């Protein structure tokens, strides 16, 4: 099963996706974050804003994955995790973070992003580290937005980041509940 997602992701990435210059992408993201830091002057607010932006990206991007691949409905949250890593991340960032640290109830997992392309060329100033800036927080929003469109309400957050001196970057995804399949018809 895992293998199959890997193939789907790689095929779609090779044949079906337009590529842009990675440096252009990384620098654009970098200047976006720096601008937010200047505008808000508060790292917590920047985190929040990045998450919000990501959410708005995620709710649109998820259709892109579905249109470009022939994925079946996931059999469970375990499969969802694999798809996020092997297809989602692969398609847009060309990395496939490993899925790890499942909670006992199977509703929580971590994505270990060893080589987050957004981090390239970036060094956080000590003040940003100290005040808790999660530089790539946009990714959390993207995952949350995308899953919400697939009827899954989640909480997504960074727990470790190499930019902050940790040994690896880790995104924690927590499934809160499944939203109703169809919007019920209004009774009026």
């Amino acid at each position, binding site marked *: 099963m895992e293998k199959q997602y890997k193939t789907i992701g790689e095929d779609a990435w090779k044949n079906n996706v337009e590529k842009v210059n990675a440096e252009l992408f990384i620098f654009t993201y970098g200047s976006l974050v720096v601008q937010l830091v200047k505008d808000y002057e508060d790292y917590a607010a920047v985190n929040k804003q990045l998450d919000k932006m990501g959410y708005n990206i995620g709710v649109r991007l998820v*259709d892109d994955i579905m249109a470009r691949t022939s994925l079946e409905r996931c059999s469970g949250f375990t499969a969802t995790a694999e798809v996020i890593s092997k297809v989602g991340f692969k398609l847009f960032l060309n990395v496939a973070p490993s899925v790890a640290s499942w909670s006992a109830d199977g509703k929580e997992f971590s994505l270990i992003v060893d080589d987050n392309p957004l981090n390239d060329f970036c060094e956080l100033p000590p003040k940003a580290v100290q005040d808790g800036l999660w530089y790539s927080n946009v990714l959390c929003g993207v995952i949350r937005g995308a899953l919400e469109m697939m009827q899954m309400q989640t909480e997504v957050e960074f727990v470790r980041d190499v930019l902050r001196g940790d040994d690896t970057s880790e995104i924690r995804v927590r499934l809160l509940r499944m939203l109703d399949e169809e919007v019920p018809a209004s009774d009026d």
Partner: protein
Amino acid sequence: MIHALFIINRSGGLIYHKNFSQHIVQLSSNEALIFAGTFHGIHALASKISPAPKRDTPRDTGIQTIDTKNFRMHCFQTPTGIKFIAVTDLMQTQLTGALGKMYMLYCDYALKNPFYNLEMPIRSEMFDTKLLQLVQAH
């Protein structure tokens, strides 16, 4: 050949409607909206009454085609709940490929347009043009 296309959003609202041939009557915008709402409801019901035998069989995806004496209607629902509905002649037995391509156009020219609001009607010239090309090439 494809006579017409409807796109219906997650809550049953019509977000796109276009005729591609003279052989089809132009519905009034009100009629088109009613069609969208009604179809949305029937589609949802159809997946409910599906006699799915076991728990682990995947949910029914609802109506896929409707046949009449003169035309066939094809419905493709994306995992996010958007429905693409095409009206074709009876020669057209399978339309999944073309509808999938329309889904891609929707992603590229509606969703990726920062000024497009989700769930709202699609008013994009580029989308119109590309769609027309796709239908004509079909």
